[in-house]
């Protein structure tokens, strides 16, 4: 791969206080690549995303984001949380949520300008929801809310994009729209890290897979990581054998 590295994990371990959450993550996400974080519940996927944002300290080894420690790269990194963690009754319009992606760029004390509104409108159009701009955020479906949060991230024009379980409980239309937008962003050179339960989706759409369960079981192309042996090792009892035809991973 000749593209420059965007995110580098070097034997990184992450801990909450003295409790280790995730150990020995090692691998590289290049610019323009989409890498899926895959593993059972509690595997440390969200923790790894928090570590990439500098919100959880790296206990040993190192994580480098765009050539810097994670906490210093935040302005060029956009984060997309799970839509259902947000209050659906919050008095805010779809357009305002997208505009929030520009706040860091605008800076303290200044109001958003013409260019910010244009960028927000463009980002909302990119996820196919321009017609819902004036609606209250909470009136949208779960999948549409997830798309709005992705639009907010795009409006920030990030060099790296981190998504926490964006496909959970999302309808097929919104899933397609999310995937298309993520692919377009990666094609534009952004490095994308997305945590997901959906192994099929990860296999079909990602350039790389990071298989986790408290520590790393594999990091590389889907064909090399999503193998029965590695999945069995990572998922343990949640992996069901199908004789010689492979195995099924049950969602925990």
């Amino acid at each position: 791969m000749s593209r420059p590295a965007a995110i580098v994990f070097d034997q990184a371990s992450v801990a909450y206080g003295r409790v280790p959450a995730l150990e020995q993550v090692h691998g590289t996400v290049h610019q323009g690549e989409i890498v899926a974080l895959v593993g059972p519940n509690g595997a440390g996927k969200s923790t790894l995303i928090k570590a990439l944002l500098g919100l959880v300290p790296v206990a040993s080894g190192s994580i480098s984001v765009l050539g810097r420690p994670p906490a210093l790269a935040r302005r060029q990194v956009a984060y997309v949380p799970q839509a259902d963690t947000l209050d659906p009754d919050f008095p805010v319009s779809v357009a305002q949520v997208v505009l929030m992606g520009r706040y860091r760029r605008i800076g303290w004390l200044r109001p958003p300008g013409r260019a910010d509104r244009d960028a927000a409108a463009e980002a909302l159009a990119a996820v196919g929801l321009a017609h819902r701009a004036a609606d209250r955020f909470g009136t949208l479906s779960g999948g549409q809310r997830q798309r709005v949060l992705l639009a907010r991230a795009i409006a920030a024009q990030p060099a790296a994009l981190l998504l926490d379980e964006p496909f959970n409980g999302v309808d097929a239309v919104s899933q397609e729209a999310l995937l298309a937008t993520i692919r377009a962003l990666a094609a534009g050179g952004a490095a994308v890290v997305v945590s997901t339960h959906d192994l099929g989706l990860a296999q079909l759409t990602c350039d790389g897979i990071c298989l986790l369960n408290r520590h790393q079981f594999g990091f590389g192309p889907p064909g090399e990581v999503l193998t029965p042996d590695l999945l069995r090792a990572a998922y343990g009892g949640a992996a069901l054998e199908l004789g010689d035809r492979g195995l099924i991973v049950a969602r925990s």
Partner: protein
Amino acid sequence: MTLFSSLGDGYVRRALLEVVIVGVLCGAVGVHVVLRRLSFLTMALTHATFPGVVIATMLGLGLVLGAGLFGVLLVAVVAALTGPRGAEHGRETSSVTAVVLSGGFALGMALMSTQEGFSRDLTAFLVGSVLTVAPSDLVVSAVTTAVVLGVLAALRKELHLAAFDPDAFAAAGYPARRLDLVLLLALEATVVTSLPAVGTIMAVALIVGPAATARLWCSRTATMTAMAMVVGVAAGVIGLAVSEQWNVAAGGAIVLSVAAFFVVSLVLQSLPWGEPAAAALGRRKSAGRPTYSG
């Protein structure tokens, strides 16, 4: 109405001005309290400020100065005890808040019981005494309101994002803890400023009530803020009018007006035609043009 006929009296004019100022301040700050679900913390701050009032009176310090200094100390204690917000192993905020609430109030009661013949004056601090507001209190209220409104307006983008999506706010590299502290100080300044009008106990109603009422009707934070300030002022003026008319305690009448606004709004919202009425105010899907205003 008795309120208008008694406007010739200086103390009634001062009381009216005070409830207007405090109504605006509490309405604006209350929006942030309601959106961030800090109602319980506000309750704690109002109760825990009470010993500050007692100490200030015992030492002969100015009421607002004493309560204000104690309030800043209190904010520091709450901030230190709750630990980094969002940290997985941070302490549970509501338990800390409950202990601070009851502990602060108990300290106030204990201090009060050591003073002979003290209790009558302190009733005023508990439930308010807006009709005895001094011109200097008015100046303090006006200055606090101007400063707090200025801070809230200057930080409105960041406060909005932090309230809506605290994870994304921290992830964007904003100093989330420092912004929380600024909001906590603004809240404590509001509590201290509302003391002369409604007292420590009822200040929470004036902060949370109008904002909670506005939230039932509004689909934008800007309209919610405007409506909360209007409800805060209206409740103050109505309460004062009721107090003058029927000779009931002003603090109680004001808080009852706040409660009435909230209950009536709840009832209207639950009626069959509550939905269209709310839609007319932009609560539901609106047909207006997109607004990308921050």
